[in-house]
């Protein structure tokens, strides 16, 4: 098991190298940060001076090698947008906000999908199933952007139950959390429903019924546990996606997390910050994948990593 984990961690290195190379090149060919920084009043000599100061006049491969050399010493570069403050610090200080939003989104997803998935499976082809299935299709079809604005209009502006945006009040996390978790809730509901339906056809469930076990015991102890594998997989993979992909939700709710930072950094070609976010997100996604793989063997002892 330990060998497997070490092997997986070693595998991350070439992937991270590839990620840094792709994001480095893409950022540099798609726009000029100097023009954005200096604004429309900039004088040509100022532009040249800043390009020189940032090393942007050097060939791309030299810039990349310099960047990688700095990266190996833990220097992620400095933010252009934030007057030269360390990019890693700028990104890391946003991590708690995004983590709390992702956790809330995940919580909503689980709290909604668990009962909805079970009910839909148990009441297959009946009204409860139709309602749960319709909502899950709706949940996946609605873009986060639209859902967020609708939730703001109804629950914040009209009813005044929750703050419209920001992160300073305890209830601030509810609407963005719900927005972020809705797609995952829908996906998990459908996933749980189909897994449960499959499991409920198995012989051991019939055996359990024949033993006279109650419906709830059958579901919780036998069916749910066996259906949990795919459910957990999706949660694991999507949790990292929630962390890395809260971009739209954070923008709509002015939630000061990594997603909002990413948009602003991309728009202003704040290269060091974008690179740091991408590297950090890659590490999070790969780590979550690894954790899910390890958890497999815990949930299902038949799976062995060695």
């Amino acid at each position: 098991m330990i060998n497997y984990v070490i092997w997986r961690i070693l595998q991350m290195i070439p992937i991270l190298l590839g990620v840094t190379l792709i994001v480095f090149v893409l950022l540099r060919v798609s726009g000029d940060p100097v023009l954005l920084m200096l604004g429309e009043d900039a004088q040509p000599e100022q532009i040249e001076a800043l390009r020189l100061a940032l090393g942007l006049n050097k060939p791309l491969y030299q810039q990349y090698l310099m960047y990688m050399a700095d990266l190996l010493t833990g220097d992620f570069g400095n933010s252009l947008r934030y007057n030269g403050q360390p990019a890693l610090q700028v990104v890391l200080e946003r991590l708690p906000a995004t983590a709390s939003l992702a956790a809330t989104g995940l919580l909503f997803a689980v709290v909604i999908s668990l009962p909805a998935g079970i009910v839909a499976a148990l009441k297959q082809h009946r009204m409860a199933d139709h309602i749960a299935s319709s909502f899950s299709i709706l949940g996946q079809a609605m873009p986060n952007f639209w859902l967020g604005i609708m939730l703001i209009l109804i629950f914040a502006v009209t009813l005044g139950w929750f703050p419209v945006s920001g992160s300073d009040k305890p209830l601030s996390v509810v609407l963005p959390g719900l927005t972020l978790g809705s797609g995952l809730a829908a996906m998990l509901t459908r996933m749980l429903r189909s897994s449960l339906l499959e499991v409920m056809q198995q012989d051991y469930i019939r055996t359990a019924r024949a033993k006279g076990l109650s419906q709830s015991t059958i579901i919780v102890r036998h069916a749910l546990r066996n259906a949990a594998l795919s459910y957990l997989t999706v949660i694991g993979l999507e949790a990292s996606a929630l962390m890395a992909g809260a971009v739209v939700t954070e923008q709509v709710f002015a939630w000061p997390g990594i997603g909002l930072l990413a948009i602003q950094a991309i728009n202003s070609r704040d290269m060091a910050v974008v690179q740091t976010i991408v590297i950090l997100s890659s590490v999070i996604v790969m780590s979550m994948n690894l954790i899910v793989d390890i958890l497999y063997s815990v949930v299902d002892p038949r799976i062995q990593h060695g």
Partner: protein
Amino acid sequence: MKRRLFAGMMPKVAAIMLASAGLSAAQARDLVVAQGIDVPGFDIHNHSTTAVEAIFVNIFDYLVMRDGKGDLQPALATSWEQVSDTAMRFKLREGVLFHNGKELKAEDVKFSIERPALDKNVMQNSFYNTIKEVEIVNDREVIIHTKGPDPILLNRLSRIGSGIVPKHYVDEVGWNGFATRPIGSGPFKFVEWKRDDRVVMEAFDKHWRGRPVWDKLIHRTIPEDSTRVGELLSGGVDIATNIPSQDVERVNSSGKAVTKPWQSFRVMTLFANMKEGSPLADPRVREAVDLAIDEKALIDTAMSGLGVPVRGSVAPGLSAVPMDLHNTYLYDPDRAVKLLTDAGYGPGQLSIKLQGPSGRYALDVEMMEVIAVMLEAVGIKVEIEALEWSAYQSRIWEPNKIEGLALIGHSNSLQDGFHAVQRARCGYEFSKKTGWCDKRFDELVNQSAVTVDPKKRDEYLSEAFHRLTDSRSILFLFQVQNIIGINRAVAWDPSPDEQLWMFDAKPASN
């Protein structure tokens, strides 16, 4: 006697209680202002955005400041006089304190103004490099020496980067330290900055104008327009900038907030590639394009009526600009067709690429679509290319990258005619983009830069403006008008310099 005394005191006590109740009611509120952008930090010389200075203006003081009408007024400087063509003396206000309690003196003014003037590495250098030295006469008096005559020195000293900072504090913490914990002498002092979320300021009790009526001033960053409107309607913010035109009705009918027009100095233009080989090198084609665009209809359709047609970079509140180019436009599609025919282009024979940004200016893509329809109506085929801002900016900055027409909006942070046209001189940015070069124009603009006599300066610049307009190297469309939303409980009028000067904001009396 005792009873009479008591009875006599009652109305006074009641009056004091009422007054203090009224005062506390007025002061018990925080004022929350929302814009779409965050500050990059508080290094005041290293940013280039009016919307950022709009926040700074509450923390830092300037030697001179513009009032609500855009006129220059004494601030830290109580008076000033031109002592020679290249020197201006400023008397400084007495008893001005920084937020840390230290007194503001001439050495702080010297330190604050000389940095952007002499340090080529700060972003604001190009706006201050006409200044040679700030001479300290005594603690209350400075003389600013310029390299040559500088008729717009006062414009420079009332704009981005001219805030006065405490020298001793910057010496102590460095500019990096200052960038995260600034100290000024403005009506509000810095408390907290949470990136991409909020800047919290609180009233500075010892401010020389008096204490602001608000306990706290909170600037929130809300990038999404609809969310900003939602916050305004729910009372979460008191003032929200850049309300989309489609939300104006909703805000005004809410009973909670009102919208007000917010004049901008930004003028939308089309830059024409008139270099060799381009069809727009033919003046008849450029004139045809100019006459084919109905600016009034463009404003009414694409911009929901927000904007004023112009034929130059002119707007009320700018000095030394010919206002006969404001609120006017030329539209004559029949003549446009004739001009195109004379130039050898029948209907559909001329194709022009119209480039522009997507999402940089309000409704920029819609603007291009309406312009394309208008040009097609006179027989010009139009290909629209809308790009994300940084990609677009990189493209149009390089010489020869504008293929046909390019949509560009320019503001005027110096609030003066010179700044509006100086970049159209041969070899400068606008000239490089369009290929237009006119020696007479250059002479006029260069003369205006060193002419202190306002009347003569107006004459030079007026002729220069008209030469640029007549060249049609740049086709001027309209002066942009933004919309600001204000809670009904707040009385505040936006000023034309786009600054969010909240010392003037008061609780509404009704």
